[in-house]
């Protein structure tokens, strides 16, 4: 009888040890992190009249007060840079940014206002709204990349042009590894 009790006690202790070991192992398992490089940008136009920005065709006319640029961002795996895709499966912690954004330049091809003639950088006129506050594209990307990689970013025009006109923009993003990504938008008619 005594040996039976000892056996039961040993089995109970072993079960506890196994349980602790399994729980410890599970806690230490982290999702595999896959570093991605920003590899492409594409420009679309948005109409931000309502609470949900709508993509618009370059043939449309957009009021300046609700105008915005939507940047579609493409990513590639560091280990396989030949494949660049804008569709990043959202999985916090699984994909991480391999680069930081150093600068964005948005060149207007037409005269925007008295201080910004054709060829000027008007990146300061475009801001991202993150749900709580406005941020520059650089601030937004480097902050949001701590958690996930956005596949598109809406840049809202915060200052109005002097005249209604057809506008075209060149967007140039410089990354901290000196990679430069550039895209030229279609022309779009902006009304006042």
């Amino acid at each position, binding site marked *: 009888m005594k040996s039976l009790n000892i056996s039961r006690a040993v089995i109970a202790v072993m079960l506890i040890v196994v349980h602790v070991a399994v729980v410890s192992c599970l806690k230490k398992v982290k999702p595999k992190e896959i570093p991605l490089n920003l590899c492409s940008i594409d420009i679309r136009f948005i109409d*931000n009249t*309502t609470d949900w920005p709508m993509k618009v065709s370059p043939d449309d006319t957009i009021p300046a007060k609700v105008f915005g640029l939507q940047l579609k961002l493409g990513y590639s795996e560091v280990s396989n840079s030949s494949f660049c895709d804008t569709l990043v499966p959202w999985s916090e912690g699984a994909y991480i940014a391999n680069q930081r954004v150093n600068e964005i330049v948005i060149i207007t091809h037409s005269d925007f206002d008295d201080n910004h003639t054709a060829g000027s950088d008007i990146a300061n006129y475009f801001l991202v*709204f993150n*749900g709580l*506050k406005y941020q520059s594209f650089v601030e937004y990307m480097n902050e949001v990349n701590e958690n996930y990689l956005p596949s598109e970013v809406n840049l809202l025009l915060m200052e109005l042009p002097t005249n209604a006109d057809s506008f075209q923009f060149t967007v140039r993003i410089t990354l901290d590894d000196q990679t430069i990504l550039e895209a030229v938008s279609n022309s779009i008619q902006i009304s006042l």
Partner: protein
Amino acid sequence: MRRLVVVIVFANLLFCGLTQDSYARWNFLPGMGLGYNLTKSADPYGPTHFLYDNARKNLNLNLFSASYFVTKHWGVSIHVPIRVSTEKYNSGVNYSLQRHYSPDYYVHDGTVIKQNIGNDSYFFSIGGVYRFVKGNWNFQAGLNIGGMKLHSNYIGYVLKEHGSNRYYDVSLNLSSKTMLSFEPTVLVAYSITKRFGLHMQCGYLLSPSKYSEKIEQVDLYTGTTVSLTENTPRPIYQLFNLNFGFLIQTGKLVE
């Protein structure tokens, strides 16, 4: 056998209660119940009205409720309840805000992003009470005068202006100071023994309350306050209470 003992003891307790009208000096009324807040917002369609709605149904806990009878019929009562709202903030608030701001603004993402909605209220009152005892039944009517302190509520959300790239941060504050209250009450108790019984109490609390409402709207692009509304509505605070509990009578019997 055990059942027989219980029946005999219970019958004996009832008999004790029936033997005579008992007018004890002290009546203690531990118990709890429900309160329903009938207060209306000064602006039933304003953005703050749901802050009033938040505390419609309340759970009453009598921290201390007692009466001291100077004479056979007349006494002084002290009542210290705490009331906790049984309602929680819900998505109806978002809908209510959206409806208020439409069509000029949208509540961004349709959600309130910051909230601190309290749900507890504190009361203290003292007053006079008249009682009448007939057999096991104890009837009391009183009028209490006191003070009360209601919760302060705060919520914050972001508005998106229709037809614009502008977003605004909005904060709503609703607070009140300690307010004077009047509460007529009616109590019916049934004595199981001379010293112990059960009670049911109804009360209708009224207060000429003074709230402080503050609504501030800040342009998140320029950082400037574009709208600041401060109101001091004076709705009549009304709370209907129904409490249940025990009646404990102590002290000498008053002849």
